[in-house]
C-alpha cells in the first residue's frame, strides 16, 4: 500500500511543474510578417493545430497548420487588421487580433529603392525616409517581442496564491452550507 501511495505521489509530483491548461495564441508583427505560436499556458506548444487568419471583415484569407514548435509565420499581402484563430483539435480554441497600426507606416512590400527624398547623414551615407522608418520598426519589434511573449505567458499563469484562494472559497461555501442547514434545523 505504501508503495502504491509513493507511486501516486510520484505521479502527482511529475504533474506539478506544468501548471494550467488553456490554449493561448501569441502573435506579433515583424517587418510586415505575422509570426507567433500557439501554446498551452504552462505546458508546452500546440503542434499541428489549425490556424486560420481572417481579415477585418471576418473573411478567411489564410489557413495553415502550426509546425512542430507550435509556430507559424505568414506575410500578408497588405497591412490591415487581421484576426487569428487557432484550434488545437480537442475543444481548445484561442483568438488574437493584430490591429492595422501594428504594421507601422511602411507597407509590407515596398522596395527600398526610393532615393528621391533621401536625407544625408554626417558620413554622407544616404538613407531614405522609408529605410529609416523600417529600421526603427524592425528594432522596436525585435525588442518588444520578448516582452509581449512574457506578458502572454504571465497572463494565464496559475499562481499558488490563487489556487489556495479558490480552495479557501470552497471551504467557506461548505461552512456556509453547514451553517444554513443547522439554522434550518433550529427553526423547525
Amino acid at each position, binding site marked *: *500500500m505504501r508503495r*502504491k*501511495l509513493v*507511486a*501516486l505521489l510520484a*505521479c*502527482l509530483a*511529475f*504533474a*506539478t511543474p*506544468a*501548471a*494550467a*491548461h*488553456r*490554449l493561448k495564441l501569441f502573435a506579433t508583427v515583424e517587418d510586415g510578417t505575422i509570426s507567433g505560436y500557439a501554446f*498551452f499556458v*504552462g*505546458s*508546452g506548444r*500546440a*503542434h*499541428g*493545430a489549425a490556424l486560420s487568419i481572417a481579415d477585418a471583415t471576418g473573411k478567411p484569407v489564410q489557413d495553415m497548420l502550426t509546425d512542430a514548435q507550435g509556430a507559424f509565420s505568414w506575410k500578408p499581402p497588405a497591412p490591415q487588421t487581421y484576426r487569428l484563430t487557432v*484550434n*488545437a*483539435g*480537442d*475543444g*481548445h*480554441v*484561442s*483568438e488574437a487580433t493584430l490591429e492595422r497600426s501594428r504594421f507601422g507606416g511602411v507597407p509590407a512590400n515596398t522596395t527600398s529603392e526610393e532615393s528621391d527624398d533621401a536625407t544625408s547623414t554626417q558620413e554622407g551615407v544616404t538613407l531614405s525616409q522609408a529605410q529609416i522608418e523600417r529600421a526603427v520598426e524592425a528594432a522596436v519589434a525585435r525588442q518588444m517581442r520578448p516582452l509581449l511573449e512574457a506578458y502572454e505567458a504571465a497572463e*494565464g499563469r*496559475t499562481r499558488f496564491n*490563487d*489556487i489556495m*484562494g*479558490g*480552495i479557501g*472559497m*470552497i*471551504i467557506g*461555501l*461548505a461552512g456556509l*452550507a*453547514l451553517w444554513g*442547514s*443547522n439554522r434550518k434545523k433550529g427553526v423547525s
Partner: protein
Amino acid sequence: MAHIPDGVLSLPVLVGGGVLAAGAVAVGLKRITDLEIPRVAILASGFFALSLFAVPVGPSSVHLLLGGLMGIVLGPAIFPAVFVALLLQAVMFGFGGLTTLGVNVVNIALPGAVIGTLCAPLIARATPKRAALIAGLASALAVACTGLLVACSLALSSADYTLSARVMIATYIPLMIVEGLVGGFCISFVKRVKPELLAPLQSEAAQ
C-alpha cells in the same frame, strides 16, 4: 479537453447544457446531507486544484478530470462540487468560460454521476483489491464518456470546431490510463483506511 471556452458552442447547446446542469445541481444540492457537506467540499477542492495542472501529451496537453472518483464517493452530489470548482476556475483563471459553464459541468459530472452511482454499491461490498479494479475501470470509462460528450457538444454546435480524431486518441487514451490508476489507488486507499466513506449514502442519511 473538457474546459470548452466561450464563443465555440452554439446557443442551443449552451442553453441545453445550462438547463441540464442547473437541474442536476439543484437535485444534487437537495440530496446532500449535513454529514456529506465536508466530503463534497474536499472533493471539490481536490478537483479544483488538480485539474489546473496539465502535462503536455502529444500535440496537446491533458489534466486529471477525477469524474469517476468523485462520482463513486459523491453520487449525484458530484454536480454541485464540479459546478463550484469550474465556476472558480473560469472566474479566476479563464479556464473554460461562464457561458459554457453548464455544458462543461454536464460533460465532466454526468459520466461520473451515472457510472459512480452504478459502481458505488459494488465497491462498498468488494474487497479492497476488487474495489480498486472496479474504481479504476469506472474512472477510465468516465474519462472516455467525457471525451465523447465534449465531441458531441462541439459537433452539435458547428462544423468550424470539429475535433481531430488524431488529437483525441493521442490525448484521451493516456489520460484514461492515468485516471484509471489514480482512481484505483485512491479508492483502494480509502477502502482500507476509511471504508465508511464508500458505504451507500442512504444508510448514512438514515442514521
